[in-house]
Every structure is written in structure tokens, then in C-alpha cells.
């Protein structure tokens, strides 16, 4: 391939094809003091893409609280690190792979999982669990079924093969994501404090070592691709999708952790987005050093690769290491043992120059800090969207009168969003590593820490409908719900990671959604003391100019001090008493009831009072730790009706519920008022529970008991729901499989 000259790049504005603007090109010229060549402009374009530089979101991300007494490492490295006592820490992060998954769902999702795992073990941590948060259009479309089936299969393929259990996540189907699915993957690891690694290049003269798969022409410009709107042309950008090799990554994981254990590494960073470029430039910039790389030494899968191609390739399963001079041989010996390819490809230098050599020639020379620290930052215009103003006067309840609660329950249980996700998680190995104490199907998953009495609870949550209707409350709810799930499993929330999936930030309405939802999330994080230790931003999620629902996804991790505190949502025992915590008002904007009966959403999302939420969570954690409850379940989408039904189904047992209200029965049962939790409590402990809850000044109400094989709900002495649990279970379990039977199986 004949590369354009520096003059051609300027005259024909070829940098625009790489996603750089004219102003950005001028800045590059300024940094170099000359015209950039093809390789150099390619390097700037990926380093300054949204994916690598956060140029559109940086000022907003600053609002997140990121520190706390337990936080060992906040955002900035591969993943955040939080102390869990006994010289151990938990390491976790979430990341998106939306656009690759839209084009090649199996490999796109698989490599998304592979990437986030590398982020965690490059910190020196042993990955112990995976989660994923997925959004698709509706299952009536065969294209959606194809995407859904293959994304799930791709996630399963990677996680199962590498042997890290996929223990939780969420799946939502909504037309807002038609054509632009969301695939967010989260990885959680455990580390001993002393093993913590950094992505930094230190000590002039120290060798830079490349480990793992060879570099091919795949994934070139993946990072810029991830920051662009999807359009018909995306189909043509063929090389932007990579094929993953979980087997190779398993070897890479074991080899790297062996090097960590033997204290061989000065710096380690995964070659993820923007491949060799981003990893090497960031390591040098962080170390305050320069770097020389000889590209002839980079293991290559294909012949005749140009420096541009080598630097921008996003081939998977590769790591970059910096070690003390003289220890190369030890590193290479470990790689050989694991059957991994490795090569010394360069060295750390004094100064600030990032220099690349190929075929004996200098092919790029860039002041390294200009790639990392001097990336442009944009504060965009915010504008309140017209729909938001119009929704002010909408009262969702008006359209939801005379609804039969019995019918509504069956209807909502069968909505793919509320139905059992077993179809998904039975394809994931959620038990490998034999540490999974609470498997998928409860509020949060729980993984025990071997050799201790501790366990980690984890969950992902995010409700795009709420955020669309009201980004501030929606943002609060995303954080609060995730923390509530963690608390219901018996854990103290420690901190969170987030993935911000939004449309184009160049649209003032979208930027407003982004900004306001971050406000809401930040406030909730402050109040709950769950700092943000890392995350990912995925913008330009649009098809044909239509943005997705603004969808911040929260991944929360909590600590369970003693295994006996582990709690699930399932009712356990006949005659246990149901206690509902929190107040209920009629809040139906963005609710399942509204979606089910009107086919769309409008009005305002439920309001969340962050102080109320905080005491509720404290109260529940307190009663769980005192051993007073049998089950705890967060009341969220579908309201109290769904919460009770889910606990019955999980426990395979019925319940008798009596409620009093001045509101319409169905509206009351399906209202999505926040800050509520449903407990089941042994009869003899009810008094003690109420007493503790009262101390926190949280409203508590006995609403019935666990009994029999049917779910009976009386509102104001009228029997409004009466269904056998086996019937409910059937409807709930079969909903997704039914829609998938017409599926288009691929030949993967």
C-alpha cells in the first residue's frame, strides 16, 4: 500500500477520514512543529478519539466522587482498586463493546469480555467474576433475535473458555436500542495489596517487552470506530472487528500472574483500544519518560505490514511489559512455559520523545505528553429537550385506569424485560472456580473469597427509560438500585464503576442528558459513600440520527463480612412474615405498567430522595447482619406486585398479602416508587425487625405471610391477584424462550 504523503494529508484533509477536525489537525502541527506523516496522524487520531481521550466527557466525569477511606486506586489505571481488609483488595471495571457487537455480535461481544478481563489482570489481580449489561431492540425482529443470540453466545464463549464465572448482569429490550445494541462487560478481580501493578514505563534503558498474540491487520481504527455513529457504511469497515482467542488469553492471564507473583514487572498494560499505540504512549507519559520502539521486532501475523498498521492494529490478547534491564530472560522463560510468544521490542528513554523505528528508519517522532495530556477537551452546549418540557404536564396515571391487577401481573411477568433471564445465564458457566454462593437469579450475585469468611456481592443496573424521562432522578436511581441490590444480598456497598452509553455529545439535548445524569449519579454516590473507581464512556450510540435512551450502567461491588450474612430474594419458609419497608405513592412514569398498557413512556420518572434511600439501606443491612431476616428483595421495575411474585417464584412457594390504600389497586401494586425493600421474616423475629427498622425511622409495614402454593393479593379486602405460583413460574420462565423459538440460529 502506498501511503499518502504529509502534504497530501494536509491538502486532501485526509485526517478527517480518521475522525480528526481541522482544528485538531492544526494542533498536531503545532505540537510537532511540522506536518505529521501518515503514521503520526494515525497515532494522534486514535489517541485523541473519544474512546481513548474522553475529550467530550472529561469535564463532566470530574463531578464523580472518586475517593474514600477504602479506595486504594481510583480512575486512571486499568481498573479501580478497593480495600476489603486482610491486605486484600477488589479490582473491577466495566467497559462497552457496543459498535463491534452491532456489526459482528459473536466476536464483538466475545472480544469485549476479553478486553475487560485484561484490564483487571493487568493490575495484578486474579479475575473472579464477570457480569454483563445488555440492551437490544425488541424480540419481534429477527435481526434483534440474531444479535441477542450471538451476543450471548459470544459472551458465553469467552468467559466459559477462559474459566471465569459469569455471575450476573441484565438484559433489556426496547425499540430505543434497535440497530444500536449495548454490550457492556464488567470484570471483578481479587488481589493482595502487595501485588498491585501499574501501567507505567520507568527507568531509562529498561526493556519494553511484547507478550501474546501476533499483530495482524484486524481491528485497525477500532477506537475511532467506537466513537462514531453507526451507519450503513459501518458494514463496510470490515477490518474494524477482531476475532478473540480466549484460549490464548487464559495462557496470557496465567503467565502474567506468575510474573506478578515473582515480582518481575515494573509496568504492565494491556493492548486494548488503539493497541500498541495507546498502551506504550500511556505507559511512557505516566512514567515521565520517552520510549523507542523497533517495529521490526513486533511479532506479526501478516507480511508487509506498515508502521501505521502495526501501531493501530487492535489484535487481541496482547500485553506490554516493562522490566528491569537484565530480567528479560526470566520473563521470556515464563512466556515459553505457557507457550506464549514474546519479544523485546524497545526501551525506555530519557526525555519526552516517543520514537518508532522500522526497517532502520525513524518513522514517527512525537512528544509523548501531547498524545496523552494535550488531547483536546470540549465543553459542549447543553439544551433542555422539548420532550422533557412537554412531559412536565403529563400525568401517567390518567391513562392507566381500570386495569385488572391479575391480568397486569401476567402481562408484565411475560414482558421480556421482567421475565426470567435463564435463557441467557444458563449459557454462562456461573460456577467455575467453585466460589459462586449466589448464582444469577437473585438481586446481586455473591462470590466467596477462598480462605476467608468474606464474600463479594456484585450487580449491574441502569434504567434508560427513567434517565430519558428525568436524567437527574434516573442517575440517582441507577446508583441507588445497584446499591440496594448489593445490600439485599447482605453486603456493604464499597464503590462502583460505570459505563455511560449515550448518543452524540454534539447534540445539545444529548449532552444535557449526559451532564444531568452524572449530576444525579454523583449526588447518590456521595450520599451512599460509593465512590466511582473507574468506568467507560460510549458516545455516538445512534442509528439513522436517532439516539438511544441515555443509558448509564452502574456496576457495584459490596463486601459481605461473614458468609452467614449472605441473603437472597427467595421466600424460604411457610409462615414467614412479609415486611415492606418504605412508602408507596403513585409513580408510573417510565414504569413497566405504562409501557405494557400504552406501548410508550411519558411523564416524569419516580423521584428518589437520597437521604431516605441511605437510611433504608442502613436499616436493611443492620437487620440482615443481626440474623433477623430470611429474604430481602429490592422493589424496582414492576413495583411491589413483581417483587412479591419474583420472591414466590424463586422460593417456589405462595404468599398471602393484604394491602390498604386510597389509590387505585393496580396503580398501587405496580407503582415504581423508589427506596422500598421487601423482607420475609420468621414470625418470632418480626418484633425485633420492626424495632430496628423504627430506630432508622424507615416506614415498615407487615403486609402478609409466606404460605401455600398460590399468590393471593388483597387490596382493601378485595382479592385482586390470585394465581398459582407454578402458573406464574411457567409464564415467567417461558416468555423469552417462546420468542426465541423462531430464532435464526447462526452457524457459529
Amino acid at each position: 500500500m502506498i501511503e499518502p504523503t504529509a502534504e497530501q494529508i494536509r491538502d486532501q484533509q485526509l485526517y478527517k477520514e480518521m475522525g480528526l477536525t481541522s482544528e485538531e489537525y492544526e494542533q498536531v502541527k503545532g505540537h510537532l512543529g511540522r506536518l505529521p506523516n501518515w503514521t503520526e496522524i494515525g497515532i494522534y487520531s486514535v489517541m485523541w478519539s473519544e474512546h481513548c481521550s474522553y475529550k467530550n466527557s472529561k469535564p463532566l466525569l470530574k463531578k464523580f466522587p472518586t475517593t474514600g477511606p477504602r479506595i486504594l486506586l481510583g480512575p486512571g489505571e486499568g481498573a479501580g482498586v478497593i480495600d476489603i481488609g486482610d491486605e486484600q483488595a477488589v479490582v473491577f471495571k466495566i467497559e462497552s463493546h457496543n459498535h463491534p457487537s452491532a456489526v459482528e455480535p459473536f466476536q464483538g461481544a466475545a472480544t469485549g469480555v476479553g478486553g475487560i478481563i485484561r484490564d483487571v489482570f493487568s493490575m495484578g489481580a486474579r479475575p473472579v467474576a464477570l457480569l454483563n449489561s445488555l440492551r437490544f431492540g425488541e424480540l419481534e425482529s429477527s435481526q434483534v433475535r440474531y444479535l441477542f443470540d450471538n451476543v450471548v453466545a459470544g459472551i458465553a464463549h469467552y468467559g466459559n473458555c477462559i474459566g471465569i464465572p459469569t455471575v450476573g448482569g441484565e438484559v433489556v429490550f426496547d425499540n430505543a436500542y434497535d440497530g444500536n445494541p449495548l454490550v457492556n462487560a464488567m470484570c471483578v478481580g481479587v488481589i493482595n495489596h502487595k501485588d498491585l501493578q501499574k501501567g507505567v514505563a520507568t527507568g531509562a534503558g529498561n526493556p519494553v517487552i511484547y507478550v501474546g498474540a501476533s499483530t495482524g491487520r484486524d481491528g485497525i481504527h477500532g477506537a475511532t470506530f467506537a466513537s462514531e455513529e453507526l451507519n450503513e457504511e459501518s458494514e463496510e469497515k470490515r477490518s474494524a472487528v477482531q476475532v478473540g482467542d480466549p484460549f490464548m488469553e487464559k495462557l496470557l492471564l496465567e503467565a502474567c500472574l506468575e510474573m506478578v507473583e515473582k515480582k518481575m514487572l515494573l509496568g504492565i498494560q494491556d493492548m486494548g483500544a488503539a493497541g500498541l499505540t495507546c498502551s506504550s504512549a500511556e505507559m511512557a507519559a505516566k512514567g515521565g519518560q520517552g520510549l523507542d520502539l523497533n517495529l521490526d521486532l513486533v511479532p506479526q501475523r501478516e507480511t508487509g505490514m506498515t508502521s501505521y498498521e502495526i501501531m493501530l492494529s487492535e489484535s487481541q490478547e496482547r500485553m506490554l511489559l516493562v522490566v528491569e534491564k537484565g530480567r528479560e530472560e526470566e520473563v521470556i522463560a515464563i512466556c515459553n512455559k505457557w507457550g506464549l510468544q514474546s519479544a523485546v521490542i524497545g526501551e525506555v528513554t530519557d526525555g519526552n520523545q516517543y520514537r518508532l523505528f522500522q526497517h532502520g528508519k525513524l518513522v514517527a517522532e512525537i512528544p509523548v505528553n501531547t498524545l496523552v495530556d494535550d488531547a483536546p477537551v470540549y465543553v459542549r452546549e447543553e439544551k433542555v429537550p422539548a420532550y422533557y418540557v412537554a412531559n412536565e404536564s403529563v400525568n401517567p396515571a390518567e391513562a392507566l385506569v381500570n386495569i385488572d391487577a391479575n391480568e397486569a401481573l401476567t402481562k408484565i411477568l411475560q414482558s421480556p424485560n421482567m421475565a426470567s433471564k435463564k435463557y441467557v445465564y444458563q449459557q454462562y458457566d456461573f460456577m467455575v472456580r467453585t466460589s459462586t454462593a449466589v448464582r444469577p437469579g437473585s438481586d446481586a450475585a455473591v462470590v466467596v473469597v477462598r480462605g476467608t469468611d468474606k464474600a463479594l456481592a456484585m450487580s449491574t443496573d441502569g434504567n434508560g427509560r427513567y434517565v430519558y424521562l428525568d436524567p437527574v432522578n434516573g442517575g440517582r436511581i441507577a446508583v441507588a438500585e445497584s446499591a440496594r441490590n448489593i445490600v439485599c444480598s447482605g453486603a456493604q456497598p464499597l464503590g462502583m464503576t460505570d459505563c455511560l452509553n449515550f448518543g452524540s455529545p454534539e447534540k445539545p439535548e444529548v449532552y444535557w442528558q449526559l451532564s444531568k445524569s452524572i449530576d444525579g449519579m454523583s449526588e447518590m454516590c456521595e450520599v451512599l459513600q460509593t465512590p466511582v473507581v473507574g468506568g467507560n464512556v460510549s458516545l455516538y450510540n445512534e442509528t439513522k440520527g436517532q439516539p438511544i435512551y441515555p443509558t448509564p450502567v452502574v456496576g457495584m461491588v459490596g463486601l459481605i463480612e461473614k458468609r452467614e450474612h449472605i441473603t437472597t430474594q427467595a421466600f424460604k419458609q411457610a409462615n414467614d412474615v412479609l415486611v415492606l419497608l418504605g412508602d408507596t405513592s403513585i409513580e408510573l412514569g417510565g414504569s413497566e405498567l405504562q409501557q405494557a398498557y400504552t406501548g410508550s413512556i411519558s411523564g416524569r420518572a419516580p423521584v428518589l430522595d437520597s437521604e431516605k434511600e441511605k437510611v433504608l439501606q442502613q436499616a436493611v443491612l443492620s437487620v440482615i447482619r443481626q440474623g433477623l431476616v430470611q429474604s430481602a428483595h429490592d422493589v424496582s421495575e414492576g413495583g411491589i406486585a413483581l417483587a412479591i411474585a419474583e420472591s414466590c417464584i424463586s422460593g417456589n412457594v405462595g404468599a398471602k398479602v393484604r394491602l390498604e390504600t386510597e389509590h387505585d389497586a393496580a396503580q398501587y401494586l405496580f407503582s415504581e416508587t423508589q427506596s422500598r425493600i421487601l423482607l420475609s421474616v420468621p414470625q418470632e423475629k418480626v418484633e425485633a425487625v420492626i424495632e430496628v427498622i423504627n430506630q432508622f425511622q424507615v416506614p415498615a409495614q407487615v403486609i402478609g405471610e409466606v404460605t401455600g402454593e398460590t399468590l393471593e393479593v388483597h387490596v382493601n379486602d378485595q382479592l385482586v391477584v390470585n394465581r398459582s405460583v407454578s402458573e406464574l413460574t411457567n409464564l415467567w420462565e417461558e416468555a423469552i424462550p417462546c420468542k426465541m423459538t423462531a430464532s435464526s440460529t447462526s452457524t457459529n
Partner: protein
Amino acid sequence: MRSAVVVFPGSNCDMDLVHAIEDVLGEEVHPVWHHESDLSSYDAIFLPGGFSYGDYLRCGSLATFSPVMEAVKKEAETGKLIVGICNGFQILTEAGLLPGALMRNDHLQFRCELEPITVERADSAFTRHYEQGETVQIPIAHAEGNYFCDEDTLQKLEENGQILFRYADQNPNGSLANIAGITNEKGNVLGMMPHPERAIVDWMGSPDGARLFTSMLAYWKENQQ
């Protein structure tokens, strides 16, 4: 009883097995790298689950060419107890230590769940602590557990009582005769798709897998003198 757990590149249930043997039996157990060519110092050998060599080509096929497999064959001949779980079962069939083959699940998906399993024989080296005909709960997690063999082989398996475990309820993968685990003719080599190491205490969902390990220990003690 000294146990070896063979580690192939891509094995991922190796440490689970080591932990289970330690926790249930408190006996000596070592992970053994696939380059090892002498296993004579071990009393029992386990081939763990996972994706040896990425399960590329066919599950378990590439692992059969690891040096350690010669050693496994040798010890099998001397009558030592050999257990292949999941991927280990696939390797044992590919290596010819057990008859038949494991094909892709008939529904084509990976399946992970707790599965009711019937113990067909309680007089084997591996099952003496179970009751004959008992149904136990042991998890499965595989995409290729669909056991297949020709009619003659199946008849022999049945006649010789080589079928130790069958799926009790719905068949989760389409396997012939609901087969979940078989032994060789001599009865010292066992291959099974369910993972006993994932079911050794209540919080895992079931403790039923533990008795496989205690059965082996009891058998070994009996045959010590």
C-alpha cells in the same frame, strides 16, 4: 491417597478439583503440568474440566498429544483410578481410554445448571458411598456433552454395567441412553460430564458430589494391603 490433577493449557477446573480433594478428603493432591511423563507416584489421577487447547478442532482432541497422556495410559493399565470430568471425559474418549465420543449438545447451546443424576451402580470404585438408583444433584456446564457410540458399544456398556451415571430428568444434551458418565470395562477409568467438585458443600447448591471422592478413598484404602 496421593492424587494428581493434570493441568493442560486451557484447563480451568484444575484448581477447583485440587480444592475439592483437599476440602473433602484432606489427602495429598498436586497439580501436574502436562509435560510430565511419569505419574507412577500417584494413586489417583484426575483430568479436569475446562477448554484444553481452547477445545479447538474437537473438544479434548489436541490434549491427547500431550506427553502426560502416555503416562495416564500406563497408569490406567496398572489399574489405578483415573477420573475425567467434563473436558477430562472428552479427552479420555479422544485418547481411546473410554469408548464413544462427545458431540455438540443437541440444542447447540452451552448449558450450565444443577442437574439430577441417577447413580446406576453403587458397587463401583467411584460410587460405593451412594445408594443404588439414588438421584443426586450435580452441576453440569458444557457445550459438548452429547455422548455417542455405535449400537454394539452401547450394548456392551449396558451389559458390563459400565454406565455409572444417567441424567434423571430431562436429558440436557441429547446423549445416548441418557448417559452422563461411564467407566472402561475394567472399571478403573471413569469419564463423566457432571462436575462433582462443584457440589461438595451446601452453599454450592448441593453436597452430593463429595461422595464420589470419599468413595474413591474408601476403595483405595481397601485395596491397599
